[in-house]
Each structure stands twice: as C-alpha cells, then as structure tokens.
C-alpha cells in the first residue's frame, strides 16, 4: 500500500440497503481492532415501533385505571377548616415526614437542597466515573471513614427520633460489611458484585431506600396530628 493509487475497495453488500463504514488505514496506524462494531438496527422502524408499543401498553393501563378508579375530589376548599392530617401530595410526603422530626430549615431547605446538589454533581466526580469498588483502593482510610460515618449517622437519626430511617441504614451497613469482608479474588457472585460497587452506589441505594420508607410511612401510616395509624384500620 505504498502507492496511494493502489487503493481499492470492494463492497460485498448493496450499499443502498446497508450503509457501510469505510476505514482508511495509513502507514502510521496499526490495524489492531480496539473496538469491534456491534450489531445495529435502523431506528425507524425497529426502535421507534418498540418504544411506541411500550407507550401503548402503558397508556392502555392508564386508560383502564381511569375507567375503573375516579380521581379523588373532596369538598370545596375551606380555609377555615383544616383537615387533620393535612397532607402534601404523595411525592412530598417523605419531606413532610422529615418535617415531623427536624426543624423546617433542616427538613424543608437543607435536606432537599443537599439532595438536588448531590444529584447534579454526581457525574462531575472522578470517583463516580471510575466507579471502582468502594474499598478497592486506599482501603484503610476508606474503611476508617466508612465506619465512623455510619455510626455517627445512626446516632444522629436516633437522637432526632427518626427510628423509621434506622433499619435501612443498618441494612446498608450490613451489606457494606459483607463487601468489606469479600476477598479480591472471590468467585463471581453476589459478594463480588457487592464488593465491586462504588461509593455513589451505596449512597444512592441508601437514599432510595430512605425515600421509599419515608414516603411510604408518610402516605400510609400517618393519621391525625401526624400520629401513627395502621392503614387497614379504618
């Protein structure tokens, strides 16, 4: 291939049907394959029609929901008469549950602010991008931080009577302990999978669990005066 004029290319397939990518290999580059192209399909119709079917299934589900269950409608708004309990929409009930434990500045401003900030900055930290197992590097220091932060968190939660948030925290701590005790050469399985999970995974999972627990408690288990009630008892 010394002479550029020697260049020739052949097409096996009908290019009108299958677009073909052509690579020009010069003398200075090696032809080693770093990344093998994978199987592609045409977006139209393959992807779009699948997406459309998925949406259709959802819409049919929603239509039947709408046919069978009426949206709630209560009496005309009456500023003079406060219902007990007055509840925010369900997706804010986690927050409302927190308001029960913490002063408004903490539960209403600090916590949501921190959550949003944390979500926004996730992709800007190398530790999240590299995504190595939490204890795979700098193990000593990380273990020390981990096992001082988790007890501190538990003490904090108990100090503010947030007992509902304790089980999920303990579960994460237990799983972290399993991850810590998993040897690097462990066979492929649940333990090695746990050990491979990065810091952001652990925080996000904890956040997800607490979000579900707090929202669930606020939605189903809170009655007049934000006291405990059982949803199946009237």
């Amino acid at each position: 291939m010394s002479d550029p004029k020697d260049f020739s290319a052949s097409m096996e397939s009908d290019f009108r049907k299958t677009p073909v990518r052509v690579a020009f290999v010069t003398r200075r580059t090696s032809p080693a394959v770093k990344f093998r192209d994978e199987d592609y399909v045409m977006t139209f119709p393959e992807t779009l029609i699948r997406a459309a079917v998925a949406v259709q299934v959802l819409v049919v589900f929603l239509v039947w929901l709408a046919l069978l269950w009426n949206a709630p409608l209560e009496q005309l708004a009456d500023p003079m008469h406060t219902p007990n309990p007055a509840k925010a929409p369900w997706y804010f009930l986690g927050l409302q549950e927190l308001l029960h434990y913490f002063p408004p500045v903490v539960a209403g401003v600090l916590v949501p602010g921190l959550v949003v900030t944390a979500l926004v900055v996730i992709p800007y930290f190398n530790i999240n991008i590299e995504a190595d197992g939490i204890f795979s590097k700098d193990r000593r220091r990380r273990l020390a931080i981990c096992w001082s932060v988790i007890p501190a968190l538990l003490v904090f939660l108990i100090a503010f009577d947030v007992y509902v948030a304790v089980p999920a925290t303990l579960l994460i701590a237990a799983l972290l302990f399993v991850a810590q005790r998993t040897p690097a050469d462990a066979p492929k399985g649940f333990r090695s999978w746990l050990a491979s999970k990065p810091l952001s995974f652990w925080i996000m999972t904890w956040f997800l669990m607490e979000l579900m627990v707090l929202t669930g408690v606020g939605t189903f288990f809170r009655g007049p005066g934000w006291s405990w009630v059982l949803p199946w008892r009237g």
Partner: protein
Amino acid sequence: MANNIQHYIDELHQHRIWRSVFRSGSGDSNLHRAQAVQSNVFLHLFAVKSRRRMLEFSATWYLGALTFGTFLVLVITGILLMLYYHPSVPQAYADMKDLQFVVSSGVFLRNLHRWSAHAMVFLVFAHMFKVFYRGAYRPPREFNWVIGVVLLLITLLLSYTGYLLPWDQLAYWAVTVGSNIASAVPLLGQKIRFMMLGGNSVNANALLRFYVLHCMVLPLTAIFLMAIHFWRIRKDGGLYAPDKPAKEGTK
C-alpha cells in the same frame, strides 16, 4: 383485495401531495428508512441506527419512552381539560363538578390526567435511578444527567401546581402544607412564599399563578429541556451501552 389496497396505498405514497409532505418516500431500503428519520423534524433527534442490544427491555425498561408517553397523554388530556376550566374561586371547583356530572367523558379525562400525572412522577424517579445504576451519567453524558435532574424538578413542580387546580380541600391543604415548607428558607422564606402564592395564604391569586405555571411556563420549559435531553442522547452516541463488545474485541 389485499393487492388492491396495497396498490392504492402505494399510489398515495407516490402522490405529489404526499411526497411534498414526506420527502423520504416509501420503500423498505435502509436509505429510505434513514431518510425517514433524517427528514423528519421530530425523528431527527434520533440517530439513524441504534444498537440492537439496547432494544432489550432489561437495558432501559423503556423508562424514558414511557415517561415521554405519559407527558404526551398529559398534554392531550390537559388541553381538553383547559376547555372546561376557569382558574377562579370558587368557579374552579364548580368546573370539577361539571366535569364529573355534565361534560361527556369529563370524569374519564380528569381521571386519566390525574393518574398519568402520578405515573409520570413515579416514572421520572424510576428513570433517574435506572440511569444511575447503569452508570449512564458518565462523560460525555454528564450535562444530560443534569438536564434530567432539572426535568425531574420540573415534573414535581408540574404535579404540585396541578394539584391545586381542583380547588377542593385536598388541593387547598396539600398546597398550603407545601408552601409552608418554602417559608422555612432562612431570611427569604416569607418572601419566597409570598412570591409563590401571590399573597400570604393560598387564595385566588395563588390559583391563577399556579394555573399559569401549570399550563404555560412549566410545560414549555419541559418541552424545551426534553428536546435538548433527547437530542443529546444522539450527540453522545446513542443510548449508553457498557463496553462489553470492546472487551470481546481485544481477545
């Protein structure tokens, strides 16, 4: 019979008027299909081709598409509901009663809008967690992740502003509770709440404000950001796929 119908359909696809609208023309060739995407203002947000393995349900659970689906349902039912709704006190509540008792399929419209709204909030959260656990926020997609977070907040705001519109006890007190949280912001709390409600309590001003936000400002912002969100997927090389094939390739 079937041939006849096919004949007429082909005839239609070849017609001047049809061709003036859909320039790609008909045909099963990949060129036609590529042009179908490229020459369509909506579809050109997509790449012409997508990875086959990303079509697997387990890859995305189609959560992005489903969220967008609920958004479309909400836009359509929302526009229909707007035809029957006055953002004034207490007419807003009377309009709910009219929807329930007089408007043809009014109950159904309202139900569908309400349940779709809940579904959308749920799906947006699910989408976010799914994207996170797949690691799809990694560069070069980091800014698209940020847009996603903003879209999550807009979805919450859309749902929250819509919650007030029926002007019933549920709406009134849910919004009151929500707005009281805003007043906890140090120093500016009361001011923020005043700006949010157009007054010191949830009243007719708040209803109008929420209505404008719910029907104009927030949906338009959402559409704008969604366009960027979708377009960026294409620009960032399609749906994020972990590099499994590359590892196979180096063997």
